[in-house]
């Protein structure tokens, strides 16, 4: 029996655990290590902040999403020892592996930008999203600045989606005319995907969302309510929403397996950690320069699971990830866009906001628990 050890119970780790445990019943022991034992549907945060979603609806016990034959360990992995094929845990115990899957995701590090923690709201964690909801509830008018606090960050379209959600939120409250929405983009355009940018820019103009390009946040001064850019500009605000910068997991840094940002150098096709034949990386944890998003982890996880199965059984060739990403963006007013692309095919620009794309997002939000984590979809 081979030991497959998976670090992280997010979407990527859960899918790999379920597929490998299902297909390698007699050939492998599958163990998943997750410090919280909770699985969070992170796209739900935006609806906690700008809608009426409750945290309890977007969190489940990881145990409930795993096949019975996956061994779940609710402890923190503190170090990976690739030489001896071991993972050390926070209680001093260790686990041997034949194949390791690093699915440790990313963590937000607002403290890396001066003043961001004190001066800005965000919606990238449950508690922060609740706090933003309360702040928006008591906001009666003024200037809201929304943007990117640091790179990289999960879900590149999320800040633009948040700007649209703000427009929708205040329109519903009947005070949109009292709220000025300003969007800060780190790029020379509003939307990360160049092909889609003209469309999103038009939407911003229709929604009267003002935008400022090439604004990479340097620091925030909460005293004077101003945010400053690396490019030498400043913007004042009444309420500031900034996506915090992200880093890779601590265990990656502690093990010396990451780059400067704590991301694991990963072959973008095989998804093996560079220099290792027995370590795979999935989702945010990789250094692959594509979207850090649930959809990316979802598609990568299937390739990783198949490659581990092929290596253990000796049947089949190594599969290659083609860079596939798919996402739904909610533009408010029950309309949205759906985007799909891979390493060789850029996204097709949408021609209009549609109800069907919005519906796709709503259905995914509702059906996620019964579909994606199982690895069958």
């Amino acid at each position: 029996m081979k030991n497959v050890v998976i670090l992280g119970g997010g979407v990527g780790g859960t899918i790999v655990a379920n597929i490998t445990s299902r297909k390698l019943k007699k050939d492998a022991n599958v163990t998943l290590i997750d410090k919280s034992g909770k699985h969070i549907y992170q796209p739900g945060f935006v609806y906690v902040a700008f809608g009426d979603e409750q945290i309890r609806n977007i969190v489940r016990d990881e145990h409930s999403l795993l096949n019975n034959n996956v061994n779940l360990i609710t402890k923190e992995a503190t170090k990976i020892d690739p030489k001896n094929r071991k993972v050390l845990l926070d209680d001093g115990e260790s686990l041997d592996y034949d194949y390791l899957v690093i699915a440790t995701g990313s963590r937000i590090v607002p403290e890396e930008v001066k003043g961001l923690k004190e001066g800005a709201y965000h919606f990238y964690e449950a508690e922060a999203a609740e706090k933003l909801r309360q702040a928006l509830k008591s906001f009666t008018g003024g200037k809201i600045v929304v943007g990117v606090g640091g790179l990289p960050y999960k879900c590149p379209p999320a800040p633009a989606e948040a700007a649209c959600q703000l427009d929708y939120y205040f329109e519903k409250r009947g005070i949109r005319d009292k709220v000025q929405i300003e969007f800060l983009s780190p790029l020379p355009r509003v939307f990360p995907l160049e092909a889609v940018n003209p469309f999103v820019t038009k939407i911003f103009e229709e929604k009267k969302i003002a935008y400022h390009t090439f604004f990479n946040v340097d620091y925030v001064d909460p005293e004077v309510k101003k945010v400053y850019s690396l490019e030498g500009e400043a913007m004042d605000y009444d309420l500031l929403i900034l996506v915090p910068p992200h880093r890779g997991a601590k265990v990656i840094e502690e093990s010396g397996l990451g780059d400067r940002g704590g991301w694991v150098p990963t072959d973008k096709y095989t998804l093996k950690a560079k220099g290792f034949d027995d370590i795979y990386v999935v989702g945010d944890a990789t250094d692959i320069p594509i979207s850090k998003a649930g959809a990316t982890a979802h598609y990568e996880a299937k390739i990783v699971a198949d490659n581990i199965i092929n290596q253990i059984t000796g049947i089949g060739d190594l599969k290659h990830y083609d860079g596939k990403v798919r996402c739904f963006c909610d533009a408010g007013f029950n309309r949205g866009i759906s985007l799909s692309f891979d390493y060789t095919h850029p996204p097709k620009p949408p021609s209009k906001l549609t109800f069907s794309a919005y519906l796709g997002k709503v259905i995914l939000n509702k059906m996620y628990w019964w579909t994606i984590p199982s690895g069958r979809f």
Partner: protein
Amino acid sequence: MSEIKISRTIDARGSFCPGPLMELIRAVKEAQVGEVIEVLSSDQGSKHDIPLWVSKAGHTLLSINDKEGYTSFIVKKAR
């Protein structure tokens, strides 16, 4: 002329989102003043975006080289 010492190469070929420029901005922020970073991009938009940002942010674009199916940009962090 002394040879340029590249301290980090980012292979952003095939990256549409977040894209090569975002990868470069991140790398420049992480780098020390004087470090040289190379970005490989297959995105045609980079030829417009990258020189524009480098100039606006006050760094130095040392070279742009067209290769087979992609472009190499070499940037020095200047401040």
